[in-house]
């Protein structure tokens, strides 16, 4: 842990509100983006992200400093996302909404492809939509691994600390997730889902 982060942590354990404001400003983008990709809905992501920071405020003493603060935040966010996904699935079941339909309706704009130029706009928009649908159809653990490694560029060691999985398992599960994403994306592009 770097000195700057250690000083921030000391202030946080004293319940310094200014320090906590700084923590939220520094890390809100990473937490929100992960939750948006996991949940696929901007309002849910914002709500859970706020809960993540409330949890952090309450349990900052529980942070032992054996990883970076950002890694700890990712871990808390991932746990909150899993719980919210379970809750939403349970609610959808109670409302007798088929799970497939539920997954489709949750497949909101978690990410949007950026076209390289105007000529590619239409094609890119369609590819972005297919990628989004393919990503939303993956299991939550697969979405988490893809998000951490391929979108946030975290190291395998950081992913091990966040997920609690051994590095070898992370690599093999990530490979399966990438293959599943690719196959589903291709099927959508070909119009054969």
């Amino acid at each position, binding site marked *: 842990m770097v000195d700057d982060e250690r000083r921030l942590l000391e202030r946080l354990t004293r319940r310094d509100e200014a320090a906590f404001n700084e923590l939220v*400003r520094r890390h*809100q983008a990473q937490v929100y983006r992960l939750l948006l990709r996991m949940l696929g809905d901007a309002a849910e992501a914002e709500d859970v992200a706020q809960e993540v920071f409330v949890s952090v*405020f309450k349990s900052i003493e529980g942070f032992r400093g054996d990883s970076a603060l950002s890694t700890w935040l990712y871990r808390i966010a991932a746990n909150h996302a899993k719980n919210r996904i379970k809750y939403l699935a349970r609610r959808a079941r109670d409302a007798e909404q088929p799970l497939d339909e539920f997954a489709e309706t949750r497949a909101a704009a978690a990410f949007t492809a950026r076209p390289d130029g105007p000529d590619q706009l239409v094609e890119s928009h369609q590819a*972005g939509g297919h990628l989004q649908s393919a990503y939303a159809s993956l299991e939550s653990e697969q979405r988490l691994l*893809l998000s951490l490694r*391929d979108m946030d560029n975290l190291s395998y060691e950081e992913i091990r600390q966040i997920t609690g999985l051994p590095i070898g398992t992370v690599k093999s599960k990530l490979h399966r997730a990438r293959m599943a994403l690719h196959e589903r994306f291709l099927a959508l592009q070909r119009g054969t889902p």
Partner: protein
Amino acid sequence: MTSEQARELFSSAFERELDEPQAQEFAAALAQDAELAREYEAFVATLELARRAAGARAEPNLLPGVQQRLRARSRGRFYGDRFSERLGSGLLQPLPLALMMLGLLALAWLALTALGVISVPPGLR
């Protein structure tokens, strides 16, 4: 190396994690099988697209919402509005202000009693 074995190495090749002999075998497998080479190319393109697409949305400012939740759940202990502190310091702090108010009330009571506007209750005489 069979096509199936090569497919298992797609992720490692994408991350450039293959050691030299493995990388050579993988390259040879792609060179021998045009379909496999196209598959790998498409696999890389999908991951590149996902990487480019990530984080294209603007993030909201979470701080006001977080502060509001903490204020509500701590019943004002954290992120309270601190009305008295915002008013100023010194004489306007809560305790001096309360003592000043008490003094004013006592003075008013004495003045009104002296002028005969109010009378002292018999029990206090």
